[in-house]
């Protein structure tokens, strides 16, 4: 058996512990798919795999137990799934053309969740379209609000939804619900002043608890969607760490631009001798210094005037 494992991995198949058997990884941006695709996945698993499917930690599917020889047939069956999920592809019928940039994960967002400040699915798909396929090892995750159910601080780019609360004092009856909600569930950014409410913009994280708590709609959401961007969290053996806040009150376009710019930065500075050609971005930034990263990442980025940028950034994390 002669298999080019490098090409196989790029094609989103895996070298498994079972000699001669591979696993197919299906990317599902935002973890959101039409239910009809499930029967297609079932068909692949039952026809070419061992009849089981793993729901991956990055919200995709992994179909194990596929003989290497069946890869072309699996790729043919993946085609309608790839097209339905609108995944960029180099050539039709040949499956995925890269695997380095991982599936974009997202919480359920405002398709369903009342707390979510935006549609995580749509933004995940937009990022997917912009950055995939790419062999560089990038992890992007989105979450609807600062509850961070998607654990985005564990990723290179963590995107948390924010809303800039608007306060109409004429609709406020001083019931205290917002102040209580903010204090008990969020950062305590609200105080009562003369029978009305004052918001400390510095400590406000834009979670929207005040809006949800308000019984008179004195608090409403901004029409503009805002985001907190956290940077360069990671798991791994060397030095796992949480992503640090980079920009508060950022906008969609800027975040997309920063991610794309970071590809250029990584292409320039990645350690070509890194095992498997894979290096978490954070280690590269540790090497070049934050300023150099910042210089690359912020090229041609025009942030909204509300944006607060934190720099330089320092990471903590576990050191063994």
């Amino acid at each position, binding site marked *: 058996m002669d298999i080019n494992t490098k090409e196989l991995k790029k094609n989103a198949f895996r070298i498994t512990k079972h000699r001669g058997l591979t696993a197919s990884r299906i990317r599902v941006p935002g973890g959101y798919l039409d239910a009809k695709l499930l029967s297609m996945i079932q068909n692949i698993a039952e026809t070419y795999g061992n009849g089981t499917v793993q729901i991956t930690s990055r919200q995709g599917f992994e179909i194990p137990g596929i003989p290497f020889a069946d890869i072309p047939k699996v790729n043919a069956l993946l085609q309608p799934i790839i097209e339905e999920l609108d995944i960029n592809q180099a050539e039709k019928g040949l499956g995925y053309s890269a695997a380095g940039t991982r599936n974009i994960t997202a919480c359920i967002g405002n398709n369903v969740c009342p707390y979510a400040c935006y549609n995580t699915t749509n933004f995940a798909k937009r990022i997917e379209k912009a950055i995939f396929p790419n062999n560089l090892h990038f992890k992007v995750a989105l979450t609807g609000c600062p509850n961070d159910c998607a654990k985005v601080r564990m990723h290179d780019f963590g995107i948390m939804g924010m809303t800039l609360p608007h306060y109409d004092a004429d609709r406020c009856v001083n019931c205290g619900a917002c102040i209580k909600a903010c204090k008990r569930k969020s950062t305590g950014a609200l105080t009562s002043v003369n029978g009305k409410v004052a918001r400390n913009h510095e400590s406000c994280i834009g979670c929207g608890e005040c809006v949800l708590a308000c019984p008179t709609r004195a608090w*409403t959401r901004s029409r503009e969607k805002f985001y907190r961007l956290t940077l360069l969290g990671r798991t791994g053996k060397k030095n796992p760490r949480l992503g640090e806040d980079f920009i508060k009150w950022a906008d969609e376009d800027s975040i997309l631009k920063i991610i794309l710019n970071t590809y250029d930065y990584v292409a320039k500075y990645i350690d070509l001798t890194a095992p498997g050609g894979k290096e978490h971005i954070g280690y590269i930034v540790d090497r070049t210094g934050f300023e150099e990263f910042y210089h690359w990442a912020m090229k041609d980025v025009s942030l909204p005037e509300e944006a607060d940028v934190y720099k330089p950034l320092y990471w903590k994390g576990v050191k063994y």
Partner: protein
Amino acid sequence: MGYILGLKEINEVLLHWKKDYVIYAPKLIPDGGACSDTDSIHYGEIQSIEEIVFDRKSDFSFKEILLPISETLFYFTEDSVMEPAAPEKQAIVFLRSCDLHAVKRLDTMYLHNGGEDPYYKRLRDRVKFILMGCEESFESCFCVDMETNRTEDYHASLDLSEEGVRIDNKNSDWDEVFASRCLEERDVIPNYVTETETRVSIPDNLSLDIMKSTMWNQYDSRCIGCGRCNFVCPTCTCFTMQDIFYTDNGKAGERRRVWASCMTDGFTDVAGGGSYRKNNGQRMRFKVLHKVYDYKKRNGIPMCVGCGRCDDVCPEYISFSHCINQLEHGMKEVNEDEA
């Protein structure tokens, strides 16, 4: 007099009125909902008929026009007091039959319940009402059972129909403006509903014994005491006072009154630290009986007009109409206990 007008012509009428009136109607507030990417329907000033939302119920009622959510009654300095001026313009309010019946309840509380309330009166006197007919009821409406599905107390009525905008005008000052633009003069009866999906029945034998029923206990844990049901209610009339002193000059300030809610903390706080109705089940009991018992005993009609907004807004899915329908069982329970 009845008239049929085109949309263009009715907008001319609105434009004509705008010289003398501020025109309020339920309108769509994009992104106005509590959750992201949801809208809401509030009362607000409108410029054209197209802005008026007919096919959905407004989340909040017209009430805030007659009774502002937060209203400054007067400003004070060390030696003087000054009331803010009343609005100069007259107002037109578009509303449905249930809400027009609610105006009667507000009038009872603010004009005929002891002395007249001057702040209410000066806003009330400037308002004319245009009835929005209801072709069909919404899911939570129970106006028919509350006998508020029809009204005659409007200045004009307005219904959208395929043949045009149907107007029944009772205000002779407006006949000219309609007659000069109408496609046709014809008797018009405003749309009204004769049945609703949600039905309620208030038991004839309802008495204060119902206070002893266990039916209220479920709300101790279900209700979160947020007050949304009160704030969307077109007939809740309670307010509380705020005397505040300006922070940059503590010798001047203002007195405001703001809407209050019998479901929230603080409503029954008294001097000395006492507080009645601490648990939410008893607050629910107080509210429900006020709406369908106490008020009726004094004024002959229930306070609730069956608009169903409280059902629509409750984040805990507590249904007021469902609660009313439990009263009969609750009365049986307390009567059996006594027997």
